[in-house]
């Protein structure tokens, strides 16, 4: 009941739900919410049937850009995006990584061209069983998601 009230309290905007509790502040960081001027509500360690404890972010009057949802898909792929319009959830959007992501992560290879010249980073997303790996389009290095720095 309490959860419903929290979501319903947002008139228009975005709710990021089912964030693992340990990832909430990472989400704040990668979405640069510390400098966002919109109304933001953060909640953490809420009870969740699916994942035990969860975090939740509500951002008023803002839709997430594609590269922002791609960032979220990298660090908390099982989180859910709820789009709120006039107090109603009009869309529940699962996080799905596209085949290629741009400007989302920094290549960990110190001698990659993208770390030395003004080049937009591009990574191919390689899904192998349950593990996601990224391959830099430029230096062709394959890396684990945990190895990259999200911009």
């Amino acid at each position, binding site marked *: 009941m309490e959860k419903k009230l929290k979501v319903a309290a947002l008139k228009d905007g975005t709710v990021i739900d089912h964030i693992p509790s340990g990832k909430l502040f990472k989400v704040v960081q990668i979405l640069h919410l510390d400098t966002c001027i919109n109304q933001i509500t953060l909640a953490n360690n809420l009870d969740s049937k699916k994942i035990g404890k969860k975090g939740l972010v509500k951002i008023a009057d803002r839709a997430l850009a594609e590269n922002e949802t791609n960032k979220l898909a990298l660090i908390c792929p099982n989180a859910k995006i709820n789009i709120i319009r006039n107090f109603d959830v009009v869309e529940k959007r699962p996080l799905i990584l596209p085949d290629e992501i741009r400007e989302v992560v920094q290549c960990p*290879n*110190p*001698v*990659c*061209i*993208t770390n*030395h*010249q*003004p*080049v937009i980073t591009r990574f191919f997303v390689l899904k192998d069983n349950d593990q996601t790996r990224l391959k*830099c*389009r*430029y*230096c*062709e*290095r*394959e890396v684990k998601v945990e190895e990259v720095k999200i911009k």
Partner: protein
Amino acid sequence: MSNKSLVSIADYSKQEILAILESAADFELTPNRKTLDGKVIATLFFEPSTRTRLSFETAVIRLGGSIIGFSDAATSSSSKGETLNDTIHMVSCYADAIVMRHPLEGAARYAAEVSPVPIINAGDGANQHPSQTLLDLYSIFKTQGTLENLNLCLVGDLKYGRTVHSLLMAMSHFNPSFRFIAPEELKMPEEYKVFCRKKGIKFSETSELNENFDDADILYMTRVQKERFLDLMEYERVKNVYTLKNEMLANSKTNLRILHPLPRVNEIDPDVDSNEKAYYFQQAQNGLYVRQAILSKVFR
């Protein structure tokens, strides 16, 4: 990106690879032709190279083309802080194609994206060196009469050595089996082993060179390259791990040939040079014909 660019060996299909080898064989028979008559080729070498630059430039001259460029980044505008994007755009105003070596990985892919003229990658850091791979394939084909079902031993620096990575990927079209011989610090990276498993390619690994290549058709030696190490302590630990000596070849197959991308330091003893199985100098010569074939394909 110009679709005529050659950035990575993965840009070529099996059919395109075989067509290049066939074309190289033609150039070996008749090296002097006017295929590039009236064309200007820029050779931009942001880091030093002897064999690759000279063989590309010889290839251009033998095909009737002209050359502009530099062999030392210190003499180019990049030393003044010019971006690679600007250098490529500027040079493409003058040249019909660009042959480029650059110390940064991915530089060739980026150059090919921004360049209005074809880019031929002559090495981008430890990443790709496709013309070397094609001349390796040509050398294997010439000495074995086929590329199919061969047993290759790759020796030395399998971690940083770009030639072995590209060769592995190119040979994957031809049902090879591999033995990787490297010290622990320079083992074949996991991603290439994953690649082999996915493709159903048999491979084994060992850290001992001695007599571990008796069933091999090709023994591909590599140099431990100081410039690829971020940690010079690691380089000092592993630089002299393997040296191939003549007596180690006593039980090898008669069709075995020893390849090396050169330059060698001390990984092949000079007494091996007189063994008929030593093929590394002919391999370097093959580079000329293969690069003629690559340049001709760019303008076809």
